[in-house]
């Protein structure tokens, strides 16, 4: 039996095919394009960016071909506040945010979903490559059939309630090529439309330049781990933890080895550099956490921690810290309102602000935004 589905249509090929599949599955589908930019570009510029007027026209054309109603919802105010400003604030704090996750968390699966549910829709469909399955304890989020296109990482922020209303028609598709072929066979001219990359609100891809205009670029010191000044920089925001290139240090390290960014200290406008080994982390932790479906105790992965209402003892899992990085084996526990993840082997170059998404097998258990990291070298490196 069909349900009422609100299909988020970006104007790209994935959401076009996802919407078509939702229609074909017999659901009552309405398309919605989210206007997120305050001043959308008129036309696409290369493959980058999204939310241009041309994108909204592409989405509308597909909706018309499918014979479904189509609306454009303006979420530019919310997007400017919850995603763009958050991005600037996080960088100002020396953290490395993931704006796509913030958008999923605050816009697509929150503001849009809430409005959709209020209008009587049962589910929000998107073109994400991920799968929602029915587990013994309720809905579960899993990786897509093909890991190469898997987007479960950026959906790691979904909560149990949100998962109840998520519908990902592309979750079982073996490849992007297949989606493009399907789009072509349906006569969608977006079949060959290039993928969007990078950060949609920085269309030219120059994140450093974009941030410099907003955060301000001030000259500051580059320090080594001993606290000695080894160089200068033109603005701390231009660096990310783990970065090696572009440090422009005048002379080599005493041991002659390359140096990497270990830490950014926005308050003092300092960048700390050191050897690669110093990037190695043994532990990640954060208090802003969420669980997609049953939590670790409910899932039977972990025992409840005695004397800690929301805590749990360590359980085996994998942790992934970027959209396209490999998951690594780890053990996680919840203690005093903090999700603490201990990697089995040291993990290199992770910055506060990134999200640590936990997996058990293909299942997304939950995530936290990383607040602090523990170096594999020093016992306490906050």
């Amino acid at each position, binding site marked *: 039996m069909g349900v009422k589905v609100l299909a988020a249509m970006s104007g790209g090929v994935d959401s076009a095919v996802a919407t078509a599949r939702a229609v074909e599955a017999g659901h009552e589908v309405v398309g919605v394009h989210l206007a997120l930019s305050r001043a959308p570009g008129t036309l696409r510029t290369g493959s980058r960016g999204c939310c241009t007027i041309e994108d909204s026209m592409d989405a*509308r054309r597909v909706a018309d071909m499918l014979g479904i109603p189509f609306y454009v919802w303006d979420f530019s105010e919310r997007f400017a506040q919850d995603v763009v400003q958050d991005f600037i604030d996080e960088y100002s704090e020396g953290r490395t945010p993931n704006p796509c996750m913030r958008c999923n968390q605050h816009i697509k699966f929150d503001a849009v979903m809430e409005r959709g549910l209020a209008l009587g829709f049962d589910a929000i469909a998107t073109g994400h490559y991920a799968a929602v399955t029915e587990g013994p304890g309720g809905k579960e989020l899993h990786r897509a059939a093909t890991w190469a296109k898997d987007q479960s990482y950026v959906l790691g922020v979904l909560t149990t309630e949100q998962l109840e209303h998520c519908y990902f028609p592309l979750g079982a598709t073996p490849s992007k090529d297949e989606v493009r072929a399907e789009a072509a066979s349906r006569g969608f001219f977006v079949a060959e439309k290039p993928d969007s990359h990078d950060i949609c609100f920085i269309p030219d891809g120059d994140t450093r330049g974009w941030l410099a205009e907003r955060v301000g670029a001030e000259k500051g010191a580059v320090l080594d781990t001993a606290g000695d000044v080894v160089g200068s920089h033109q603005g701390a925001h231009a660096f990310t933890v783990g970065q090696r290139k572009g440090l422009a240090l005048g002379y080599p390290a005493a041991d002659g080895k390359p140096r990497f960014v270990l830490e950014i200290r926005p308050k003092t406008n300092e960048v700390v550099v050191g050897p690669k080994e110093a990037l190695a982390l043994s532990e990640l932790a954060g208090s802003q956490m969420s669980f997609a479906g049953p939590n670790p105790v409910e899932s039977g992965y972990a025992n409840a921690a005695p004397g800690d209402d929301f805590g749990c003892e360590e359980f085996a899992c994998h942790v992934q810290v970027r959209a396209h990085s490999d998951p690594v084996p780890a053990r996680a526990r919840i203690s005093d309102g903090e999700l603490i993840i201990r990697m089995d082997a040291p993990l290199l170059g992770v910055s506060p602000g990134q999200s640590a998404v936990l997996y058990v097998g293909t299942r997304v258990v939950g995530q936290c935004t990383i607040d602090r990291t523990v170096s594999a070298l020093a016992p306490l490196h906050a």
Partner: protein
Amino acid sequence: MGIYLDHQATSPMPLAVREAYLEALEVVGNPSALHQGGRSARALLEGARERVAALVGAHPVEVVFTSGGTEAINTALKGSVWAHHRTHGPASHTAIAATLAEHHATLDAINWLREQEGTHWREVVVNSDAVMDVSSLEHVLSAGDITVVTTLLANNEVGSRQPVESIVALSKAKNVPVHVDAVSAFGYHSVNFRELGADLMSLSAHKVGGPVGTGALLISRTAKDMQALHHGGNQQRSRSGTMDAAGAIAFATALEVRALDREQGQDRLMALRDRLWEGLLAVAPQCVVRGSHDERLPGNLHLTVPGCTGDVLLYLLDEHGIHASTGSACQAGVAEPSHVLLAMGVPAEEAWGAIRLTLSYTTTAEDVERVISVFPDVVERATKAGLAMKARR
């Protein structure tokens, strides 16, 4: 088809118009060609011009067919400024008197003229019903520098009729030409161009059941030369390009059908609109009807629903098979609060909840009752969605 209550956006083409249109399309020949086919086409075109002229109280030579209302308005305003420049030099001072509640075709053309030609915009105030304040126009005219005054015949969103007679009289007294944008109103109000005494008037065929892509600019014999499109100098040099004989025939036929409908059905149309008005307010008393209550287009009902947004109301009405509009323009489909409501002094918060229902002579009593019967559900769900949005602001 569902219940169509968006006649001011476009009005369906009656059978008689479709038949006349198709028949005219069979004639092969460019009306400018000298051969038999060309002469036949020209005969159709000029016949249509005479019929349109007769129905709007103009002389045929005053009727210039255009591609529609937008072109007519652009030609009138740009043509007035350029005519002034031709006479007084390209750098001469030009100024247009207009309110902020005009149609976007007017507003955008004036803004273009400001940027490109240095034309000044002299703002004339509207009251809370979007009716032009005549004393404000008098004040604007007193500066003595106005090139052209432009006004709607009736506001296309909230339906308020404008005091065009006074506007023309005041302007004539100062020797200033007047352009009347009658696009959305002339299907509901009989118009007599000569009696009104305006210099320019814009019309559009599809608003009265004619084809999209056809319209007219009425240019009085005493007005200056309007030249916006150049190629060959057809139609009194005002509008070059191959003339659309079939479109003109369909336009003339639509106007005739509409004139008859208006004569026979005006009271019925107003009664239906008033029933809708009363019925919607009875089931949703929080709604506010915008625009003039007494002097408004017979088929127009415009209201704002507190706590709702227009796009959501439209979606929910559409779900019930009811075709309505917010009445205002949108940028790439993104709803914006109506500039007309803002000009009327309606707070943006309230302006978001605008909805325009426009009836015409094909609207039935059953249509109206059906809208009234689903309205409580629509408002309830739209309010819920509105609350959800508000809670997260």
